[in-house]
């Protein structure tokens, strides 16, 4: 097996950079750790879940999807080039890699999204098996595992108490990256460390079943009073994929943007005529849960949440998916009278 010394992640990044790759790694940035372009001297941190996920490299917060305008009397349309620099995303959390499988499905379901697909084909995802998890992690409740390989092109498995990393290519992209790493990898036989333990926090199929039957439950009001109606959960979520199209115009030119949007914001469903079908925050919070754990399972047979726990870590009001799912489970435990 191919083995990398764990303290040589920076050297691997340097080698890949020299070979023409753009390298993304979880890097310390002030108070947060962010999956960001690596440069020499960057402080790589694999011990915490970064605030953003690999999704940002495939579907950025804002992107230009077209330009058009009037030149003289003629209407002109310009294509918007997509940044397809060959990218290696290293030390991606297994939950985030798994999210990409879902994004692939969503962005190719009824219409192949050219922007997403162009970025996607340029990215090689190398996940890192979790050596530690925090109290917000819940991948095992939504079908994932701290050593899961879904969505990854290659996986790094810590060995010898984290001193070494076994690089296991899973796809052609992963094999190409292993070849590029070249001399940094040595042939050795080591045993992978036990991955982090992530206790299961709720029974996902039971929650999905309850959701399908309880769109009109009065509990949504109770569960949503604390929701402040911001997009912190959605804008750090590795699977949230909703967007808004905005045209920004000057006198004769227009730039068409695709920006992240979220059901948590009242404006998301506001009609031009003034009506808003999601009348209150309860309807908005319900939508987020329903979409992830009822509609996506029903439509695609997948789960719209990978259990990364970011929504809970970032929510100013301490809300999250687990807390509602556990409440749903508690209701079901109450014997019918």
């Amino acid at each position, binding site marked *: 097996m191919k083995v990398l010394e764990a303290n040589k992640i920076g050297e691997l990044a340097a080698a890949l950079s020299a070979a023409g790759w753009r390298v993304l790694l979880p890097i310390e940035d002030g108070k947060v750790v962010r999956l960001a372009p690596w440069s020499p001297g960057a402080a790589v941190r694999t011990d915490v879940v970064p605030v953003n996920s690999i999704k940002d490299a495939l579907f950025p917060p804002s992107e230009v999807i077209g330009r058009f305008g009037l030149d003289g009397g003629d209407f002109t349309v310009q294509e918007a080039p997509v940044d397809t620099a060959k990218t290696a995303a290293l030390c991606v959390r297994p939950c985030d890699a798994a999210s990409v499988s879902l994004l692939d499905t969503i962005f190719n379901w009824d219409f192949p999204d050219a922007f997403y697909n162009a970025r996607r084909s340029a990215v090689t995802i190398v996940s890192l098996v979790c050596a530690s998890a925090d109290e917000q992690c819940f991948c095992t409740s939504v079908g994932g595992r701290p050593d899961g390989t879904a969505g990854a092109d290659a996986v790094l498995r810590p060995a010898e108490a984290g001193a070494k990393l076994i690089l296991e290519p899973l796809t052609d992209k992963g094999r190409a990256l292993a070849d590029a790493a070249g001399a940094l990898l040595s042939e050795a036989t080591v045993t992978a460390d036990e991955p982090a333990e992530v206790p299961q926090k709720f029974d996902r199929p039971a929650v999905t079943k309850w959701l399908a039957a309880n769109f009109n439950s009065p509990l949504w009001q109770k569960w949503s009073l604390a929701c402040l109606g911001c997009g912190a959960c959605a804008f750090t979520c590795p699977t949230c994929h909703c967007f808004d199209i905005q045209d920004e115009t000057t006198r004769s030119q227009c730039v068409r943007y695709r920006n992240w949007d979220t059901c948590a914001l009242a404006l998301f469903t506001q009609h031009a005529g003034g009506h808003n079908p999601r009348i209150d925050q309860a309807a908005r919070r319900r939508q987020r849960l329903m979409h992830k754990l009822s509609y996506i399972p029903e439509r695609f047979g997948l789960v719209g949440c990978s259990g990364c726990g970011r929504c809970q870590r970032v929510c*100013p009001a301490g809300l999250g998916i687990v807390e509602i799912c556990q409440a749903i489970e508690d209701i079901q435990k109450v014997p019918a009278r």
Partner: protein
Amino acid sequence: MNVTESIRADAARLLTEGRAKMVIGYGLRNGRSVPVFLTEPQGADSLHYGPQCTLNLAAYLARPEVRRNAPLAIVAPPATLRSLVVLAAESQVPDGSVLALAVGPQEYHGVVDVAAAAEIVRKHYASPEVDPDLAARARELAAMTPAQRSAFWREQFAKCTRCYACRAACPGCYCRRCVAETNMPQWVSTAARGHGNYAWHILRAFHQAGRCVLCGACEAACPQGIPLMLLNLSTAQEVQEQFGAKPGLDPAAKPVMGSFRPEDKDDFIR
């Protein structure tokens, strides 16, 4: 009785006597401080108070789902008391609709109306406590050239994804339609990049000038770690220097940026 026990007793009493139909306080879930919305006195034991209670609960006063439970009572540390006074000064808290369970760092001041909340603030908490590190960083920023300062903020604002958690967590941001989201005309680019992010954050800071109570809720809410308090503190210091204004002391105060005094020291506006 300690502070938590006092809050529980008063919350239960207010609900029993009907002086409040809902008490907004802090509870604990898995060791984390979370907001609690109490409508029955029996639930008062779920209330807790401690240093981890940093969310400014006055942010909920603008929400229709909460307002319809008026009269309300709210657990209020000094910054939240200041927010209540600012909201009252801006006619956002109808008379008698909100009571505060006023708490200090060590003590419990009891149940007060807005006028009495202002008195407590003037007597005990007239100057917000400013973290010495934050004050030092604000001084460093003030010593920069405008170009350096602009470059610093450009780098910070580049991290913004426009989730608007800062806005949602702020009691002072209660506009029904934020100017950042109007599109006829569009004042601020909604794309989470360069000039749109810069415009949004400067606009937010200017709208908070003379109104920000320095509670820190916006920075605590920001997932991206943008040092918003540095911007708020710099703006607050400027307002105090230029206009002698300290928000949150007087429910009859006129808003600094929304009023004019004939004796204003600048003459360009006359």
